[in-house]
């Protein structure tokens, strides 16, 4: 090996490190890969919340979520980002009629949750009550809000951590949904 060739090594090394660091810079550190992506929904059967004109309090189970693409949104009234994304969820649920929006009221005060949905409108077809956060653990939840895309066979296809807005819906949700279709 001549001296010239040896001089290339630090250069190559530097470029590799630079590449790695630039790659890391563009990534969101809170975007932890979900262990549940492409895995079936966890088995559960939990009561649903009655509010406004929805007085049905039957149990909701894994089976009820199969048959169409559903958007499962974990939210709570104690969670400020949930308040931020709420009007946008209402708007998309009105626009995207073919999707089933399911809310999971996560470790919340049920009276406040009812009041919240009655005042601000509800994007959800059903709201599942997860009083102690057990369903959250089964979904690998870190906190609220988190949103999952589930296909018609009940397979989780995508997990989104944090607020949903216009840009995130168009850039991440829409491509996943059209891929499933």
């Amino acid at each position: 090996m001549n001296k010239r060739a040896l001089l290339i090594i630090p250069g190559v090394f530097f470029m590799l490190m630079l590449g790695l660091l630039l790659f890391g810079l563009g990534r969101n550190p809170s975007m932890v890969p979900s262990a549940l992506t492409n895995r079936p929904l966890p088995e559960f059967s939990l009561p649903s919340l009655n509010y406004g004109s929805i007085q049905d309090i039957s149990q909701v189970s894994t089976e009820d979520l199969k048959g169409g693409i559903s958007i499962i949104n974990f939210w709570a009234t104690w969670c400020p980002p949930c308040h931020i994304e709420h009007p946008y969820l209402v708007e998309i649920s009105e626009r995207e009629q073919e999707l089933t929006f399911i809310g999971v009221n996560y470790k919340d005060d049920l009276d406040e949750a009812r009041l919240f949905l009655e005042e601000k409108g509800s994007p959800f077809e059903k709201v599942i009550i997860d009083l102690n956060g057990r369903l959250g653990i089964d979904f690998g939840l870190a906190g609220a809000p988190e949103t999952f895309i589930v296909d018609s066979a009940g397979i989780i296809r995508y997990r989104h951590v944090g607020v949903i807005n216009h840009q995130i819906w168009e850039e991440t949700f829409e491509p996943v949904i059209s891929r499933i279709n």
Partner: protein
Amino acid sequence: MRKIILILIISSAFVVSVNAAIVVYQFDNESQQQRFNDLSDQLRCPMCLNSNLSGSDAPIAADLRAEIYEQIIDGRSNDEIIDFLTQRYGDFINYRPPLNSGTFLLWFGPLFLLLAGIFIVWRIGKNSQKLQPLELSSEEQKKLNTLLENKK
């Protein structure tokens, strides 16, 4: 006097609420307690990313500690509990992740960098040896001597 009693009553309410926030887990024996401590030290909080379950105030960390506690009381083994959490949160949850294709770089990356560093230092050392002055042949020595003589 009434005021003082009132203040005492009001402040006692705060004392109670502070105590209620600290969860004390009751174990059947010391080894269970030890396992609980080990697991909550070894497992990572999914919310705060850089802290373990025992060191985190995040609500999810408290929930996961409660989950671990219940599973220990139910008689599950450490491996079963770690499996339970790994299924839901991925290898990410474990500060001592298992060795597989996804974690290979994590385990051996530093060793690889160390070896690369040793190799580079070794190459540089070897090269600098080459720069040492060579012995002069007798002819060259003569030439040098005459040059030095002429300078005087």
